[in-house]
């Protein structure tokens, strides 16, 4: 067989079961690709020995006819997921050499179903960022390059964030799929930037247990893959009720893969007029194109109004930092992670946290402390939560009026180069999440699907937003878009000879 890293996750699965390929061969091919791709800085920790050991076990199971749903499929794990015995960093210095004695529920679900881990993927520090530039271990480089005339320019493109290691690894064929997390767009925006598929399921669909918390009421786990089918396969294994997370929902997980190829005829797709603002002409053109693709597939297009859309991002930048400031209080140098010496306990705390947290994390923790502090709580936090109710109500009303899903752009533009945004004004970077953040605020499922390439040769994505726990409909609609859109050719590995 030719290079097995070029298979989709579904193709690899079928090839393994058909014994056209062994898990060991498949894993070795990925390990080699990872070794050659260190210039991308996608992996923070590589675990080739563990992967090969698991692959041998998978081969034995396949030989015995005992293959599990994801048997022998090599994946990357965002380094926000705690992995037993494998260093977990959240891309922060403050966790230092933290090695969990436990495994996150979602990654454990993947191993239960036979998948194996290639290593831990880079991310924005504590998932706070939209470009993977806030990682304490350096930025991730996108495998994509910007077109300049007939060739490419030298600028290093960001893979989006915070799941930038996940999106880059999947786009560069370093893993068949990767886990990711999404608090304000951290699955969908990097997927859109790298021509991959990323789904943030409904809040409560996946357990948050064992995933380093950023903003508890917004965080959700989800996969990034190269096809819609692959995302459906991965999510089915990742999702499910977990008694250790009482915000996870106790409802059966459907066979999402069955939704791929299902007819979308008669589905009502809402087009929110408020999303016209915020994006460039190129993304608006793609959006129109997406509308046409769905209409051609038989869906019914209706204009809808989500009037509180423009308040979602500012409200998010109150709620997420507030929760984060509290969630990150546990990083105090007492029980694990970095400790800086101090005169006394307070001095130890302040020095440890100043050194351990990067600039963006420090900024958000401080904003969060401010909006919760005495005299500001009602004006900021409570008001933002009221606005959150209004944002959710907008969606509730649209769905109640018979809309099955909402189609929007995923990002305002294609990916930008490292250092290009947010250096002077943090808000400039925050605007990247303008189309994705409403979905987290309302707890809804959202999927990013590639729509094509922009004039700069970089991918552009569309987003579908669904009813709560109706991921299946999103998969069928996303598959329809995927088959209508021009095929994305993932970049050739220019990085293998990069220094």
């Amino acid at each position, binding site marked *: 067989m030719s290079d097995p890293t070029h298979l989709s996750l579904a193709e690899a699965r079928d090839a393994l079961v058909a014994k056209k390929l062994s898990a060991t061969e498949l894993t070795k091919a990925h390990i080699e690709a990872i070794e050659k791709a260190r210039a991308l800085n996608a992996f923070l920790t590589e675990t080739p020995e563990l992967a090969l050991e698991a692959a041998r076990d998978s081969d034995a199971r396949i030989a015995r006819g005992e293959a599990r749903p994801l048997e022998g499929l090599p994946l990357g794990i965002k380094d926000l997921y705690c992995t037993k015995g494998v260093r977990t960093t959240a891309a922060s210095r403050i966790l230092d050499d933290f090695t969990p004695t436990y495994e996150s529920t979602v990654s454990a679900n993947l191993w239960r179903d036979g998948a194996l881990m290639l290593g831990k993927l880079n991310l924005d520090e504590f998932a706070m960022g939209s470009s993977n530039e806030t990682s304490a271990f350096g930025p991730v480089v996108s495998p994509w390059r910007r077109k300049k005339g007939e060739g490419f320019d030298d600028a290093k493109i960001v893979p989006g964030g915070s799941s930038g290691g996940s999106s880059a690894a999947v786009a560069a064929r370093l893993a068949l799929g990767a886990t990711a997390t999404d608090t304000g767009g951290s699955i969908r925006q990097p997927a859109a930037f790298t021509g991959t598929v990323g789904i943030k399921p409904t809040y409560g669909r996946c357990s948050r247990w064992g995933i380093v918390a950023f903003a508890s009421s917004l965080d959700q786990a989800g996969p990034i893959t190269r096809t819609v089918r692959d995302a459906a396969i991965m999510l089915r294994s990742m999702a499910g009720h977990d008694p250790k997370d009482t915000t996870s929902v106790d409802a059966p997980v459907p066979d999402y893969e069955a939704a791929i190829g299902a007819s979308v005829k008669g589905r009502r797709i809402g087009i929110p007029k408020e999303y016209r603002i915020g994006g460039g002409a190129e993304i608006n053109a793609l959006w129109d194109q997406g509308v046409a693709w769905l209409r051609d597939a038989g869906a019914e297009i209706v204009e809808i109004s989500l009037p509180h859309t423009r308040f979602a991002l500012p409200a998010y930048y109150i709620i997420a930092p507030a929760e984060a*400031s509290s969630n990150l209080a546990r990083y105090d140098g007492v029980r694990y992670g970095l400790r800086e010496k101090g005169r006394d*306990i307070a001095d130890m705390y302040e020095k440890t946290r100043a050194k351990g947290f990067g600039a963006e994390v420090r900024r958000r923790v401080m904003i969060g402390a401010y909006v919760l502090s005495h005299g500001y709580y009602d004006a900021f936090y409570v008001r933002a939560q009221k*606005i959150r109710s209004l944002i959710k109500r907008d969606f509730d009303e649209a769905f109640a009026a018979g809309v099955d899903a909402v189609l929007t752009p995923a990002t305002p533009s294609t990916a930008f180069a490292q250092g290009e945004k947010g250096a002077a004004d943090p808000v400039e970077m925050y605007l990247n999440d303008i189309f994705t953040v409403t979905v987290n605020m309302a707890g809804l499922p959202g999927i990013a699907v590639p729509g094509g390439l922009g004039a700069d040769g970089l991918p552009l994505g569309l987003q579908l937003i669904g009813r709560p726990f109706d991921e299946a409909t999103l998969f069928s609609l996303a598959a329809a878009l995927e088959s209508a859109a021009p095929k994305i050719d993932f970049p050739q590995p220019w990085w293998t000879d990069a220094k």
Partner: protein
Amino acid sequence: MSVDQATVRRIAHLARIAVEDQEVERLGAELNAILDFVAELSSVDVEGVEPLTSVLPMQMKKRQDVVTDGGFADAILANAPEKDDHYFVVPKVVE
């Protein structure tokens, strides 16, 4: 609402993050940029709107009163920066 330097220091202390004197001004500017960005929320009419407490319309599940956890002090202390016997050790706390 605008954050002054004294406020920056107060917030930094509340968050237990040491700030250097030369950082204070820049931090203040950054925090103000974010506060300016969220300022438009004050224009929204939220009269009679309940703050959202959960996006899920479900009841909180409860655990049975059974001891199912603990008994592994070694694992609890496995990543400790400083420990003595089975205690975490920190710089002296003055009461």
